[in-house]
């Protein structure tokens, strides 16, 4: 590593033909390395053979555009178009699929380069976790955690930040739902998603200025991927919950003459009550019915895409998480026995949530010339969320939700891209219009939002260096209606500001490092300004604050990656200072007809988040590979030195994988052992001094939690799988030893243990 830094040559003095291409060849379906694959550059007839673990390296190449042809026994050869301005290190995926003809995968320069490639999950890896919730599927990525509400609601946390600060890009469109609360999961069918990654800094500017916690990009398969009729069937069956999910898709090109492509997809999910290590959690079932389709048409100049998806979900909320007041919570925390829940059921009773989400998207791409292109995107989202309390009132036989939000969002974006020599420029404008209406309890007022943004991002490559920089301006406005303002005289707010980021990246032998600096901002969200009322599950009154100002982050991060021999190392360190960080702060004890409750007012303090993400993968021997990973995050309220609640505890995980010999029809069988240790969150806020505060004898702490952070825990998992013809089969055991534990990142940790052992069988078929 020292040598790598010492060997930095002035980039301009670099001789032109000393670039290299290196990487690893893998199976796109299984993620298995393809040993001894042939890698060949068509233009200059340079070629090498990968080693037994799929690694290869071709040296002494001049800058330019090349076609890489990769071959492997059992796969059809595939060609990859690459543009070489600096040494390239990336993974190449070959399809074992005998239906897919030799095709060109056009690599978008400046994006797919190994060094710039964001941390993400490939389709093959995603297949092994299909059927899990979307956020849980990302949990294996460095820096990623999940924030849960019970067993069925899970949302991603990146480097300690989530909800309003983490933008999810579903199929290129900013996901718009009531995602601000921890009990609101992203309303996305995970079976539509083929690939996921997190981006931050310069790469996030194109999408949003308010993604202080990064952007999670969830993409479906490329509609123009294959001319042949192709499809897939996924299924996942779990012992815990006694249910599972199935999904099917079919895609292809309408005819050889007509460049019209289509894809249809649908999925169903049903799970019953989840079991902890010893008892069933009443009313934790879930049901989903989702479908989507896409149509695409393209020629040399234009490409047009239409996408539509519909998501419908019903989620039971754990029956005994719904408490009346602080006394009830105190009784539960002091060990009050919950009524017997020894039986299993599929029934979804009150309290439950019923959610519909619809996305319609259309995109037009125009290739202006060989160097530049234009794209226009329009999307409309419709989100209806109905929440039913434990004992609501039914009017005229109709079950009426106690909380009902309807959010309609229209968004549009125009982007101009230009690649000239070593320069890659993107300039764009975006607009968003949001209308939210509620019925029932007025926790959130009715409102309308407008957002207009302009951005420019430039990537410059010279020699071993790459410089990325960009800026974005956004103007956000909000009109707030009943019950805060009225239709004629709304309360109005306008915020406008600039976000900017710069990153320098340096290629080193078999790797790179990146130093990135960014400043982003976020206007206060409507819930932070105007939410008002009682949160039943958390025994707290939440009060918005209309006087909130924007919050602004100043982030520095350093990432280092290197492949040496059979080892891959990735390390990131980051510091995130947030000025005017908005959070609910305990302010008072308030008396209501249900008794006394602590009241949280949205306030602003300065916050500091910092952390480390480390990952190490090693091919120990021919058939053995190991992976070690950890994500550490620390957070402090700089204004008063207290801790924030729900900051992920330190977690360490390791896995060992053994690749067996093929046996008859069973191809590429493997066994994998996973061990994970999560520490107790020792930087948790103090425990609420109930008795003293309720008696008026103690001052309310500046930050507190209702219960101490749960103890640390070990979890063990096992996975085995193989392929039989076009089927891939895998078996997974989670929480193998049926450990009883509670998760600090689950809001229901006050009431219930985490799920016990779960066996999942997955059978996938692709053609």
């Amino acid at each position, binding site marked *: 590593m020292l040598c790598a830094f010492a060997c930095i040559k002035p980039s301009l003095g670099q001789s032109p033909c000393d670039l290299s291409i290196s990487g690893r060849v893998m199976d796109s379906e299984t993620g298995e390395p393809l040993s001894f694959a042939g890698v060949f550059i068509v233009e200059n007839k340079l070629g090498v053979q990968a080693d037994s673990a799929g690694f290869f390296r071709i040296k002494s190449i001049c800058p330019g555009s090349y076609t890489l042809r990769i071959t492997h026994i059992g796969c059809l050869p595939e060609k990859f178009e690459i543009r070489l301005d600096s040494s390239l290190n990336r993974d190449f995926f070959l399809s074992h699929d005998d239906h897919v003809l030799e095709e060109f995968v056009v690599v978008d320069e400046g994006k797919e380069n190994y060094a710039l490639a964001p941390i993400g999950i490939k389709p093959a890896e995603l297949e092994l976790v299909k059927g899990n919730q979307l956020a849980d599927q990302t949990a294996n990525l460095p820096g990623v955690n999940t924030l849960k509400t019970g067993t069925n609601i899970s949302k991603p946390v990146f480097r300690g930040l989530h909800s309003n600060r983490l933008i999810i890009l579903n199929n290129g469109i900013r996901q718009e739902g009531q995602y601000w609360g921890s009990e609101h999961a992203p309303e996305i069918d995970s079976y539509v998603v083929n690939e996921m990654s997190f981006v931050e800094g310069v790469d996030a500017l194109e999408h949003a200025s308010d993604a202080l916690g990064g952007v999670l990009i969830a993409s479906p398969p490329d509609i123009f991927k294959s001319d042949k009729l192709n499809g897939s069937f996924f299924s996942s069956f779990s012992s815990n919950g006694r249910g599972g999910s199935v999904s099917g898709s079919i895609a292809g090109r*309408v*005819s050889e003459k007509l460049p*019209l492509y*289509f894809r*249809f997809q649908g999925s169903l999910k049903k799970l019953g009550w989840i079991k902890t290590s010893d008892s069933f959690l009443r009313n934790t079932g879930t049901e989903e019915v989702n479908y989507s*389709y896409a*149509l695409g048409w393209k020629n040399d100049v234009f490409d047009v895409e*239409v996408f*539509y998806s*519909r998501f419908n979900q019903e989620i039971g909320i754990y029956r005994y998480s*719904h*408490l*009346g*007041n602080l*006394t*009830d919570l105190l*009784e539960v925390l002091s060990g*009050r026995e919950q*009524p017997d829940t020894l039986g299993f059921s599929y029934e979804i009773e009150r309290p439950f949530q019923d959610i519909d989400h*619809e996305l*319609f998207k259309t995109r037009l791409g125009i290739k202006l010339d060989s160097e530049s292109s234009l794209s226009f995107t329009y999307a409309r989202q*419709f989100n*209806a969320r109905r929440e039913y*309390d*434990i*004992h*609501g*009132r039914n*009017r005229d036989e109709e079950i*009426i939700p*106690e909380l*009902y939000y*309807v959010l309609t969002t229209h968004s549009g974006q125009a982007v101009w891209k230009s690649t000239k020599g070593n320069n890659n420029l993107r300039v764009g404008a975006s607009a968003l219009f949001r209308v939210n*209406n*509620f*019925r*029932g*309890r*007025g926790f959130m007022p*009715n409102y309308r939002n407008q957002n207009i943004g302009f951005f420019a991002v430039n990537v410059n490559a010279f020699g071993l260096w790459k410089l990325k920089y960009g800026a974005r301006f956004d103007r956000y406005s909000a009109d707030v209606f*009943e*019950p805060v303002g009225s239709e004629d005289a709304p309360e109005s707010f306008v915020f406008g500001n600039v976000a900017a980021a710069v990153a320098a990246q340096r290629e080193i032998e078999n790797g790179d490092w990146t130093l990135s600096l960014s400043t982003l901002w976020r206007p206060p969200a409507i819930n932070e300004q105007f939410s*008002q*009322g*009682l949160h039943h599950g958390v025994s707290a*009154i*939440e*009060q918005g604050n209309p006087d909130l100002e924007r919050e602004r982050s100043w982030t520095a991060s350093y990432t280092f990656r290197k492949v040496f021999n059979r080892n891959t190392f990735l390390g990131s360190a980051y510091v995130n200072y947030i000025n005017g960080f908005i959070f609910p702060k305990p302010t008072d004890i*308030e*008396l*209501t*007809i*249900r*008794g006394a*409750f602590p*009241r949280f007012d949205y306030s602003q303090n300065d916050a500091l988040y910092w952390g480390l993400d480390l990952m190490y993968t090693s091919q120990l021997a021919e058939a053995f590979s190991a992976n070690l990973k950890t994500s550490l995050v620390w957070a402090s309220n700089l204004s008063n030195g207290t801790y924030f609640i729900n900051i992920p505890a330190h977690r360490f995980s390791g896995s060992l994988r053994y690749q067996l010999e093929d046996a008859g029809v069973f191809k590429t069988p493997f066994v994998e052992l996973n061990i994970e240790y999560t520490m107790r969150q020792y930087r948790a806020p103090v425990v609420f001094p109930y008795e003293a505060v309720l008696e008026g004898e103690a001052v309310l702490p500046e930050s507190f939690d209702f219960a101490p952070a749960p103890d640390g825990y070990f979890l063990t998992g096992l996975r085995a799988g193989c392929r039989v013809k076009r089927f891939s089969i895998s078996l997974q055991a989670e929480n193998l030893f049926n450990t009883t534990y509670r998760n600090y990142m689950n809001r229901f940790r006050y009431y219930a243990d985490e799920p016990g052992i779960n066996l999942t069988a997955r059978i996938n078929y692709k053609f």
Partner: protein
Amino acid sequence: MMKMNISKTKYLWILTLALGITLVSCEDDDTDETPPTQNDPELITDLILNFTDPDTGDSFEYRFSDSDGPGGDPPSIDDIILSQPVGYQVSITVQDASDPDDIEDITEEIEEEANEHQFFLLVENGAGDVLDIDYDPTDVDLNGDPVGLHSFWVTSGETTGNESVRIVLRHEPDKTAPGAAQGELSEEVGGETDIEVEFNLTIE
């Protein structure tokens, strides 16, 4: 050639179907319910204790009122002032009075779901020495267990200053828990609290 035509027709069908779905779906939602604003169907703002002195026929009420719901303005709570020695008949009324033009009586709903509800009337801070509260034995649910909407309050001495009465409404309590039938609220009762209010008590 023939085969190709068939597959073309098939694709055309799929295409037509797809467009159909688009149109239907979009139409569906454009006309979709934008829910009009409406009050919280579960909001409780007022609890009223209606006192009747059967000897004199006098009746009066004491009220806990938080008309803007949780948060916002603090609630107003009457002090209960009683004479002694008197036996009062007391009935509880629960209202949603957030809209003064449309006061909703929630007592009926509690009566309808009497099996799932019980009021506990707790004498606290020494109030037990001067006040005795018993359920009206005729005020029972279908299982014969008390509901607590109607009760008898018997005063037997003067208060000294700190005495109070706490009224708790539990949803889905275990009415068979020890003491529950006599109005004792132990941990075994369980369920969840719908109402919990405390009144200062003065007996003159």
